[in-house]
């Protein structure tokens, strides 16, 4: 049961994956339109990815807490 709970917590990774995918597709579109702005777009993309990753990290923390505390 505990392992199943931790597995469900790990599903948060799906949300982070979708978020990073969307951000990257928009960034590629933006660079295709304005190649000269690629530097700014890339730095904004990396920051956005780090923020989107946070949801997956919350899933990791919750999964660890389930495994260790229970």
């Amino acid at each position, binding site marked *: 049961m505990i392992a199943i709970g931790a597995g469900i917590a790990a599903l948060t990774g799906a949300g982070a994956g979708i978020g990073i995918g969307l951000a990257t597709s928009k960034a590629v579109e933006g660079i295709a339109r304005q190649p000269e702005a690629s530097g700014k777009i890339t730095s904004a993309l*990396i*920051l956005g990815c*780090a*923020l989107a*990753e*946070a949801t997956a*990290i*919350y899933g*990791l*923390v919750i999964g*660890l807490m389930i*495994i*260790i505390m229970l």
Partner: protein
Amino acid sequence: MGGISEEISQNLQYMNHAITIGPLTIPQGVYTTWGIMVFLVLVSIWLTRGMEVVPKKKRQVLVETGVGTLYNMLYGILGEHGKRYIPYLLTVMIYLGVANVIGLFGFTPPTKDLNVTLGLALMSIVLVQYASIRQRGVGGWLKSFSQPVAIVTPLNVLELAIKPLSLCMRLFGNVLGAFIIMELVKIVVPVVFPLACSMYFDIFDGLLQAYVFVFLTSLYIQEAIE
């Protein structure tokens, strides 16, 4: 399965490598932080010694460029009113940057301890509220909770707890997650491959998280003093 979860919970015990001096027990996160502080102070003294108005030495030019770049980046977010908070934010950024990559030199990163990141997040949120009170006065600060409409007041009060919790969990989870993945990778492929992973997890992700932490804090401050 049992071995790994055992090892992870072993590593989560923050009192694991504590030093006991008389009645005091000093956790690992604290004395590693002291070490980083001493290191940073010594480096700062060495870098700022013998500064000149017109720099002739290479190290002064390097320091001025680096500090200037970081300062301008935060100044772009915070603006004229918020520039008094920049030194604190830069200090936190440099500390976190060193703390996250210290694992490369064989130390345990202090940010792997939940209490360290929680302390940093609490400092950040106290600074944000202080900035808000200083800018708007106590009345304006209280009123800002019911902005833009009165019905969101509970959410705004809740945000007082959510913001530091999210800051703290993001940093802690990233460092810990990187640590666990590195341990697993080392079990599966002991040679060469961990090096590539370490480049990403220790250097890139560590520095990125230091930047994200400070960036979010400065966004909160900017929101508080707008």
